[in-house]
């Protein structure tokens, strides 16, 4: 129960003034610019865009600055901002097959056409602190080589030619949209993918990890992981045709999963799919694993009772803004609630004390 009380205005104003001062930190240290965050903390910016569900690197960088580096608070700011934007339309589904790949690897085929392109990865670094970064210095240009001019084909396309992997049915159905209608269960796969791509990275990672450790294990191989830029096309009503309205960076992960076959499906490989804004590879792999785990029903697999198979559990708990909102509200005043609890406990104790006194008398 909430009761309106007055009297906190001055304290709140002063708290916010102090927050601004603390955000700035020691004024002898140069102030961080939004452009510096955008360029040099790019993976944080990517996470805020993915979970804030709005692709705009400048806004995400501003949100990170305002939130003092608290990424969930920054995501909250982006989610709040996006509700103020009028929706002009939707894009034509992006063609990830046409991606200009910075990185593209396959854990299933060594000699994949297009090759294993590592890109700017943390993999194979020694995870030792590099104290050279504490000093300022120029970075030499990275080496170049003859660029590939054709698009890089999808790995699953090769498996599909042999019919060894379950086919994705082509369709142009209008997908349900979480931002327009509240999440309703059972959710179809497009809705689940939307919830997962904007879901909390830590939560989706843990769910994916649980499937690897045996809770609804689905034997995933990373068939392909690619990071790069794709153009975004949109139908323009004034023109009557689609034009490219921009370009976004995406991470895509396709898993190839072992599948023995079921009552309804022949033995074949099955797929999990992850697609996330920005360079967000841990999230994209996690998303693909959880996507695959949630598909047990349509593939006729057994319900192992695992958390990652439980659509309600996963989808209702993966959103960190909903979770934060409900979790943090309990720190707000609940004085009247608590007063009634206090009264109740006192009454129960009184009754218990009276009852024991009466039984003592009776015994005597």
């Amino acid at each position: 129960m909430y009761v309106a009380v007055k009297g906190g205005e001055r304290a709140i104003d002063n708290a916010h003034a102090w927050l601004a001062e603390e955000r700035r930190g020691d004024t002898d240290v140069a102030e961080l610019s939004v452009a510096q965050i955008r360029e040099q903390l790019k993976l944080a910016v990517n996470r805020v865009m993915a979970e804030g569900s709005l692709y705009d690197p400048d806004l995400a960088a501003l949100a990170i600055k305002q939130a003092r580096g608290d990424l969930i608070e920054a995501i909250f700011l982006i989610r709040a901002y996006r509700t103020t934007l009028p929706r002009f339309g939707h894009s034509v589904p992006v063609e990830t097959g046409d991606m200009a790949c910075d990185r593209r690897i396959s854990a299933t085929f060594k000699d994949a056409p297009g090759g294993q392109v590592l890109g700017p990865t943390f993999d194979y670094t020694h995870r030792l602190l590099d104290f050279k970064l504490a000093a300022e210095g120029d970075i030499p240009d990275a080496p170049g080589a003859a660029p590939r001019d054709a698009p890089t084909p999808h790995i699953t396309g090769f498996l599909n030619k042999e019919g060894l992997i379950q086919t994705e049915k082509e369709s142009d159905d209008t997908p349900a949209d979480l931002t327009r209608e509240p999440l309703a269960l059972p959710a179809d796969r497009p809705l689940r993918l939307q919830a997962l791509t904007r879901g909390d990275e830590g939560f989706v990672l843990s769910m994916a990890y649980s499937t690897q450790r045996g809770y609804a294990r689905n034997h995933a191989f990373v068939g392909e992981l690619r990071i790069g830029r794709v153009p975004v096309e949109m139908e323009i009503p004034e023109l009557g045709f689609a034009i490219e309205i921009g370009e976004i960076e995406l991470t895509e992960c396709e898993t190839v999963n072992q599948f023995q076959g079921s009552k309804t499906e022949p033995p074949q490989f099955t797929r999990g799919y992850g697609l996330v804004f920005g360079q967000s590879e841990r999230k994209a792999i996690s998303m693909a694993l959880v996507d695959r785990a949630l598909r047990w029903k349509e593939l006729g697999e057994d319900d192992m009772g695992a958390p990652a198979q439980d659509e309600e559990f996963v989808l209702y708990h993966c959103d960190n803004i909903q979770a934060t909102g409900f979790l943090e509200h309990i720190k707000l005043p609940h004085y009247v609630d608590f007063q009634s609890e206090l009264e109740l406990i006192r009454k129960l104790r009184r009754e218990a004390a009276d009852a024991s006194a009466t039984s003592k008398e009776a015994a005597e």
Partner: protein
Amino acid sequence: MSLMAKAPGASVARLWAALEMVPEFHWLRAPEVGAAMVRGRQGATGAPFNLGEMTITRCSLQLESGAVGHGYVQGRDKDKARVVALVDALMQGDMAARVRAGMLEPLAAEMDAAKEARAAKAAATKVDFFTMVRGED
């Protein structure tokens, strides 16, 4: 329009300033910032799903000649949207050749070079496998 929508705002502004054109126009729709829902496909080729939104800015204007131009650009740069709409309108008239040479061609060259440079760096990280001599022989 596709080319300019993807181009960096600073490059568009620089090339536009160098063109030294000040066409008279009136707004049909003043620049406004909004969002477009970006869609993907499940498994890259299957049914569409909503991936998340991106910010876009749009505007429409009309030159004194009567030519109508539209600007749709990624992000929240209203000035860039205005220049894109102006270029769209100018490309329909007798200034087309000048605008193409001063704006579209250098912009395309600049963006191709940037894309090429990135692709070259990616190519340099491509793994060249070789098989080690096996021990069993």
